[in-house]
């Protein structure tokens, strides 16, 4: 599993509608104006393709920052 910094860097490429400066590991991404339900699917696809780890919509409802998400993936390795 990548470090939080590398994970954030890679995911930001996929979430390219977010300005890099607005999305840090502890930012509550749900409160950003760019956030949309489409990003849930992008994150699910990213975790599946990049790490071979399945996360569900239910899992993501329990996450609001990239750090939460990274911690979730660490438990699923």
């Amino acid at each position, binding site marked *: 599993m990548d470090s939080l910094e590398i994970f954030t860097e890679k995911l930001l490429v996929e979430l390219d*509608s977010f300005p890099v400066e607005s999305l840090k590991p502890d930012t509550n991404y749900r409160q950003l104006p*760019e956030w*949309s*339900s*489409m990003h*849930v*699917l*992008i994150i*699910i*696809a990213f975790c*599946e*393709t990049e790490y071979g780890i*399945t996360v*569900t*919509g*239910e899992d*993501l409802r329990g996450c609001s920052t990239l750090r939460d998400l990274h911690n979730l993936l660490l438990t699923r390795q």
Partner: protein
Amino acid sequence: MATFTTVGSSIAGISAAVPAVRIDNMEYELLTPSEQQLFVKTTGIRYRHVAGPGQTTGDLCYAAANKLLNKLNWRVEDVDLVIMVSQSPDYFLPATAIILQDRLGMKKSSVALDINLGCSGYVYGLTVITAMMQTGAFKKALLLAGDVSTAATNKKDKSTYPLFGDAGTATALEYNRDYKIAFDLNSDGSGQRAIYIPHGGIRHPIDATTFEEQTLEGGIVRHQRNLWLDGSEVFNFSVREAPTSIQTLMNLTGTSPDDIDYLILHQANKLMDETIRKKLKFPAEKVPYTLHDFGNTSSASIPLTIAHACRNRQALTTKWLLSGFGVGLSWGSAQLTTHQLVLPEILYI
């Protein structure tokens, strides 16, 4: 898991018809311009063809079938069997296939039946029709697959409305002992509510509450006769099961992506299909899409993609892997070879 091979039928041609009316998702007013861009980029769906009032799945499949019969120079009286795959039939009853048996002018001794499946339906339809042809009792057959899904989507539901388009297709098959098709089929009814229309059947007939709209999370508005879709559950299901089914089939036939000319995936959305493609390590040029122009056309999406995207790209002999996955939950894959497949131009009616 059911994995097996049918022997004795080859596909001679595939045609498709879509409504002439085209909707542009970049003009969908419930999404902001940046949301429209994100939607089109992520799903791959820019345009959708939408049936007009009174235009049915049967109308689209009839047009596709007529075009194909003419192009193949087949006499309709030689067609013994017609199977229709749809979840948006012309009537609750009778079966649309029987209506089309008459409308196409097929003889009364022919066999006509419907199969009620959606995204996986084309693969299941191929299974049933080739299994019946394997008996030797049917020399020429038509598999019709189509849906007017937009009849059940709510324009105020931005999670489903911009995904779906309408289409009807026809696939002509003939008896030929030299051909075989390998299948892998699966079902999981525990996921029945991941994609469903709550009211309108016997379980929940249409009543006074049916058309009361509900506002859900994210401002999504639906009523009980609309299509309800759990996007993330369907996504998880599809990227888990479709690659497994395709890999099972390749293991059965002892093939790898190098041996296949085209992998045709049910056109669900680009993000989902690309995740499946990458998991299977199929090169992008072997996995064509029609999502940009037609959206998700349910049971029609596999034959529509063959007819549209492969029309000028097939070799004399072509090896195909097809995979459908979705409503049910139901999923299946097929591996087959075609020789000089006839693919007429798409009809816009």
